Structure formats: structure tokens, C-alpha cells
């Protein structure tokens, strides 16, 4: 039996699936595979499940569906695949097919699909995946001595987690202010970047959000868009041009890249001594753009920070929060985060530093749940604390 009609997006990936020689190299650094052990949790196992679905020797059980959503889209398997297969594209294709099938009520018995539907619906209704009210998006601005112009050279695209959890948005804007950057935000007219709907296979919602946000950015007249969330960064930089079918009219930067620009112009001066041994955690979405060095360079600028590197190069590299996993299976996501924290503790770190709100959320809940003696700190908080000319709030 051949199921190509049922899975049109997956069928387009048939050649990639056949190219898989089942060598299992992709398993070596997959955090899901390490955590769950079952072959169905490994990237190679998923490729086999997909081959089974296409060629009819596999069936769509609830565990098959769950396996296909057990992925953080960290991209480690892609880096390890000797056949050069972009597994993430394949895994996205099946998620699109599953989402479309669910819209036709064809998978109504699946608990996991029900969850996916709910999350996407929440996003469509509130323009954020957290279920908060859209009008509360600017709540982080309260009590801030920040008057933003209507148009500016830089738009700080705040993102849902920084906006609603407030701290990261406040820190970023205070840093930008301290550095005299000519910036503004989209205020209450910003909407979710669409990262969650993208990973959950909801193409329509993602497209709508991309169109909407791009229009607002254009209206702001900005030449540069800066994000503090690597998820937003990846959507704006890589996915929006693909979705809209044209090159971006503005430059998209992660805040760590912008800070390096200030550093190189000798405008970023970190002074206060902090005295902390830290491990830096690379958010997956930044590694996909080869942003490894920038955050480390910034850390090295902060007096008293001792950066411990994980030379063993063998431990899991993912926080467990990506690809929608934190929303779909918080237990699994937290276990993965715990493994990463154990690496930091083994290295002797007092704190794990990163610069992604999703990673911070995943690590914070793991540290709390497992009572781990380690601080989780946003790189931007460290920068702000040590800036000589910071604004006190």
C-alpha cells in the first residue's frame, strides 16, 4: 500500500527518506534519543517510521504520532548526518501533513494532535502562544523610563516570552537605551513571530503572522530588526523570506550580534566585577546561524566572569524546550534540561548563562524541579549589571 496521497508534504521528501542509509550517526547527539532510548525516539527511527508510513508497512499509531512530535528541532541530527540529509525539513513536512489531517477531523482520537490543535488555536486567538491577552503585550513597559519614538533606525522585535514574562524585554531595552541606540518597538501591534505554529505544522497561521509583522516593521521605517529571542530571530531572518518568497528589506540581528558591533566601536564597557564561574549554553536557533563566538566574546568582556568550556563535546547540547516540546511534553523537556544542567555542574559552574528566553524557562523549571544548585542567568542580565552607564530601575 502506498500512502503518498495522505501525506503530500512528506511525499515531496521521499527522496530524502530513501537516501537515509540507517547508519544511526544522527542518534549520537539527539537528546530525545538519549532520554527515551527507544529507537522510535531517535532521528533514524523516525526516518524509518516515515518510510513505513509512505510505503505502507507502518501505521499511524498514537506512539508514532508522539514520536514525530518528540523533537526539539535542535538540528544536531542534521549536523551529524553523513548523507547530508536535512532531517528537520522532513520532520516539518510530516507535521504539516498531520496538522492538515487534523483540520479535516481525521485524527480526532489522538491526544497529542488535540494538544497541537489547542496550542495553534490559542495562538490564532491571542497572537501569542501563552494564552495572554493581546492588549497586555506592552505590560513590560510599565514603570520603565523609556519613551520610544514612532520610527527609528532599529526595531526591537520583543517576542512573546520576553514581552509577557517582562524581564528580558526590560533588560534588552535598558541595554539599548544605555548604549544610546536609536530604537523603537512595534508596541501593542507586534504579534507572535509564529515560531510555535511553524514547528507545529500550522502553515496558514504562520504565514498570516509573517505577513502581519513584516508590514508593521516596514511601517516603522527601520533598517535593522533586533531580537532578544533566538526563536524570533530565526523566524524573521530565515523563515519569513522563505514564506513571503522574497528577500528581507531590513537586516535581522540577534542582540548578541548588535552588542558586538557596539563592542567593536568601543561603546560597550562592562565594568562591575561579578566573580562567577559559568558555563555558556548555546541556544540551538543561534547555532544554526553560527552564532557561537559573539555571546562568548561578550561574556569575556565582563570582569570576574570565568567561562568554563565543555571540552568533552559529548554531552547533550539542547535545553529540551524547542520545537514546541515544552508545550507538548513538559516532563520530557525538563528531563532534557536537567541533563544539560548536570553537565554545567560537572564542569564546576555556579551558573548557566544563555541568551534565549525559552532555554531560560526550560532550565529554570528543571533547576527548580530537581532542586539543582545552579543559577540560571540571562546573558543580557549580566551585561546590564556590569554596564558602567546603566539606567537604574
Amino acid at each position, binding site marked *: 500500500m502506498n500512502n503518498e496521497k495522505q501525506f503530500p508534504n512528506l511525499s515531496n521528501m521521499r527522496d530524502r527518506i530513501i537516501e537515509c542509509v540507517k547508519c544511526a550517526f544522527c542518534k549520537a547527539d539527539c537528546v530525545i534519543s538519549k532520554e527515551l*532510548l*527507544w*529507537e*522510535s525516539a531517535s532521528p533514524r527511527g523516525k526516518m524509518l517510521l516515515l518510510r513505513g508510513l509512505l510505503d505502507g508497512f507502518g501505521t499511524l499509531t498514537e*506512539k508514532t504520532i508522539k514520536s514525530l512530535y518528540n523533537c526539539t528541532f535542535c538540528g544536531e541530527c542534521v549536523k551529524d548526518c*553523513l548523507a547530508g540529509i536535512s532531517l528537520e525539513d522532513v520532520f516539518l513536512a510530516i507535521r504539516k501533513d498531520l496538522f492538515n489531517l487534523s483540520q479535516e477531523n481525521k485524527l480526532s482520537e489522538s491526544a497529542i494532535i488535540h494538544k497541537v490543535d489547542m496550542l495553534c488555536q490559542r495562538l490564532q486567538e491571542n497572537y501569542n502562544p501563552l494564552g495572554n491577552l493581546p492588549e497586555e503585550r506592552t505590560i513590560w513597559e510599565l514603570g520603565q523610563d523609556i519613551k520610544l519614538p514612532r520610527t527609528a533606525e532599529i526595531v526591537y522585535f520583543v517576542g512573546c516570552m520576553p514581552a509577557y514574562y517582562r524581564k528580558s524585554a526590560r533588560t534588552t531595552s535598558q541595554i539599548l537605551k544605555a548604549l544610546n541606540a536609536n530604537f523603537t518597538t512595534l508596541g501593542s501591534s507586534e504579534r507572535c513571530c509564529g515560531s510555535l505554529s511553524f514547528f507545529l505544522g500550522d502553515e496558514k497561521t504562520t504565514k498570516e503572522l509573517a505577513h502581519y509583522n513584516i508590514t508593521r516593521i516596514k511601517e516603522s521605517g527601520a533598517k535593522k530588526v533586533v531580537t532578544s529571542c533566538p526563536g524570533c530571530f530565526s523566524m524573521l531572518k530565515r523563515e519569513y523570506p522563505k514564506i513571503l518568497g522574497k528577500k528581507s528589506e531590513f537586516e535581522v540581528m540577534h542582540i548578541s550580534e548588535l552588542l558586538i558591533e557596539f563592542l567593536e566601536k568601543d561603546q560597550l564597557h562592562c565594568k562591575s566585577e561579578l566573580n562567577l564561574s559559568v558555563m555558556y549554553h548555546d541556544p540551538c536557533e543561534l547555532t544554526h546561524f553560527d552564532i557561537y563566538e559573539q555571546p562568548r566574546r561578550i561574556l569575556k568582556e565582563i570582569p570576574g566572569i570565568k567561562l568554563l568550556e565543555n571540552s568533552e563535546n559529548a554531552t547533550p547540547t539542547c535545553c529540551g524546550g524547542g520545537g514546541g516540546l515544552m508545550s507538548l511534553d513538559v516532563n520530557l523537556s525538563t528531563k532534557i534540561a536537567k541533563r544539560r544542567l548536570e553537565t554545567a555542574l560537572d564542569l564546576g559552574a555556579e551558573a548557566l548563562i544563555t541568551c534565549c528566553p525559552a532555554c531560560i524557562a526550560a532550565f529554570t523549571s528543571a533547576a527548580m524541579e530537581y532542586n539543582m544548585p545552579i543559577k540560571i542567568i540571562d546573558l543580557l542580565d549580566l551585561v546590564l549589571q556590569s554596564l558602567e552607564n546603566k539606567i537604574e530601575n
Partner: protein
Amino acid sequence: MDVIILSPLENVIIEKLAEIVGEQFISTDDADLVSYSSDFMIDVFLKPDVVILPENTPQIAAIVKLANENSIAITPRGAGTATHGGSIAQGGILLDLTRMNKIKELDPISMIATVEPGVVYEDLNRITGKSGLWFPIEPPSGAVCTAGGMVGNNASGLMALKYGTTKDYVLALEVVLADGSIIKTGKSVLKSSSGYDLVHLFVGSEGTLGIITEITLRLIPKPMHLSTAFASFPSLNGLNDAMNAIYEIRRVLTPAGIELIDLQTQKAINEVEKEKLVPEVEILVIFEIHEFSAAGLEDQKDLIEGVARKHNCNEIHWAKDDEERDRMWKARKAATVVSVRSRTSTLLGDLIVPIKHVPAIIRFIQEVAREKDLLISIVGHAADGNIHYLIPFNQNESKKAFDAGDAIVYKTIELGGSITAEHGVGLEKIKYMELEHGESLSLMRAIKKILDPKGIMNPGKIFPAEKQ
């Protein structure tokens, strides 16, 4: 071997199995049956009836006992990177041993480690490395393959020339036999002449004689100075040039590894990696050398370079640093995978011939490729005579691909070689077992019958069906 497979498994048995390992570690879900249905390269997809992830030896003993009483097939599996279907099961129980991944003891004084079968090769070396010790097999699949699977296949790898194969490091084993009894054979000592060597009966037995549940390994000091070179042999006679250089070098020193890659494979590597990882020449040879002193390393380099150049090597490039070394080996590790990407099926050969016949067998393979109009890529552990050939083919070419494979194997036997040097027999090479082993195959069968009278251990592997 005639095998009785109860399929589908009765529910009552599944319930008993679940009692042994716990509900969480047993599955009959199609997601698990499908995801364990194949292994590296082979285009065969077979589903077991049930997959189990045991935690310890007593659990395995109880599972095997139950399987034996009910004549249920049982197939052990490590990472499933075997190339010939050795780790897949048509019905019965598939035992995934990756949960048993502890290093039970590391004795840095005696230089011995005792491990569970599911420990991953590179994880083991990461730990032993902290004591300056090393299990030096270096299979290209080392980031995922397990100690149990390596013993199951008697795996070797990129450094076999100097360090040998898995069998040279296994000192003792704990094995669950087909009736569920547990035996320990061998000791944590470097030599013994006490009775038959049962340890090495199990090494390379591909799960057909018992489930290995504990492995005691000899370790060696990890050399401090390493270097890797790409040596290019550009002339049309590059194969003879390269092999003559290798023969001459081998008579005076033993490099850790000498690998050979043909032009077709070099091109495929560069294409997939989207950067020029390897030069493109008639024959590319990789030299790996290990030493305990920097001066010794330099001496080896000089010697290799001098001999290679004498045999028309026009460029020899030694890695500048570890990063470059890693890139070079990445290219070699990719070699078996990249050349078969655009095919629907692949035949992967693992022959070994006396090293004086390496040029003859390679020429023969090239001739077969021309005659049958097939693209056959060749990579090999050239200096020990172990050559891998890959025949990618589409459905309509399957007959000529298999005919080509047969012709190459017959030639291998004619040259005094063996059908498989390190990957094992599995499913794919069964048809050649009689040819290679003749009468001694009966003795192998007899041993199998004594240890596994009902034929429940990894059935359908190694042995051709007995003639009625």
C-alpha cells in the same frame, strides 16, 4: 537452521515478559516494531513481535528462559549499525540492550574495564581516556555502536592494522545461554591456557549462541602523539603505486591505519560535504600514525613520505592540528554513506584477501563494474586486505547488482580470502557460508545445536537452511 517462530506472540507471554521488565520497557506498538525493522544499509524490513529494553542480567535470563520454554525467537541488538541484517528480527522478541550501558569497573592499574553490553564505544573511551587508557578499535560507527554489538560482530575499524580487532581485547564474558542459564567465561587476566577458549567462541557469534551481558576488556595506553596524512597517487596506475608504497612501508613499520579511497568516492564526499574535504585523484591513501614521542612521530612521517614519493605520490599532506585531523577522518567515515545516496538499494561488500592480492581484487571489482555497467565505489582498510565495495542500484538493476556481488565473492574465495572481515554474516552473506567454510560449517552447526537446541537465538542468521 530450522527455526520455530511463534508469531504472533500469545498475549499471556507478553504479559509475563512485562512482569519481568515492567510495562514501560516492553512494546508491541507498531511504532516500535517499524523503527527496529532494519539496520545499516540493508534494504530488508522485518518486524519483531515485541521489543524489550532489559535493565540487567537476571531480567535477560528470565526472558530467555521463557522464550526457550515457548520456542520463541530472540534477537539481541545494540545500536543496530550492523550492515547485513544481523540485528533485525522476523517475529519473536527483539532485545534492545542499550539500556544496559554502565561501565561496571575500570581498573587503571591492571588496565582492564568491565562493561555492560549497551555501553557506546566512544562513551567508554571518554571515561577510560581520563586514565590515559584506550580501547583502540575505532569503528567509524563508534559514536553510536555498542560494546555488545562490537563483540557480536567481532568489529574492527580504522586502526586494525596496528591494534587488531575486538577479539584481541575481550578477556572475559558473562553470557545468558539459550536455556536461560548464566555463564561466566574467561578471567580478568591477560592470558590463560586453561581449557577451550569459549570467550572467543562467542566473539563474532552474532547473537546466535547467547546474549552477552557483561564484557571484560583489555585496555592499552593512549598514544600522545598522533598524525594523519592524505597521500595522493594521481597516475592511472595509482592503485599499483599506492599498494607498492604500502607494502614497502609495512615491511619497516606498522602505522595505526592505512585507508584507501577511490576517485568515485572522493567525488561523492566532496559533493555531500559541499566543501573540498578530500583531493580528487586516482587513489587517495590516508595514513594514521601514533607515537609516544614527538621525535618518533617525525621519524615515521619522514619514512612514509619518502617511500610514498618514491612510488609516485605527488602530494602528501599532514594535518596541521586536531581540527584538521578530525575533518580528514570525517571524510573517511562518510565514505561508506555518500556514494550510495541516489540509489534505491545498495549492496555493501566487506571482503578480505591476503594483502598481496589487494590490487588484483580491486582490479577485478572495477572490471565487473565495467562489464555490468554498474557504478561500484571502493574504500578499504587497504593495508590489512579488507576492502569495502558499494554497489548502488535501482530496482530494475537488482539482478545484475547481485550477480556482480556474487562474482566478487567467488573471486575473493579463489584468492584465499573471506566473505566478511568485520561486518558479520547476518542475513545477506548466508549464501556464501558453505563456499567459504566447506565441511567446517557442519562443526559450527553442531556447536550451535549444543548451545541452542531449539534454535531460538537470532534465528535465520549465519547458517543456510539445512538440506533435507
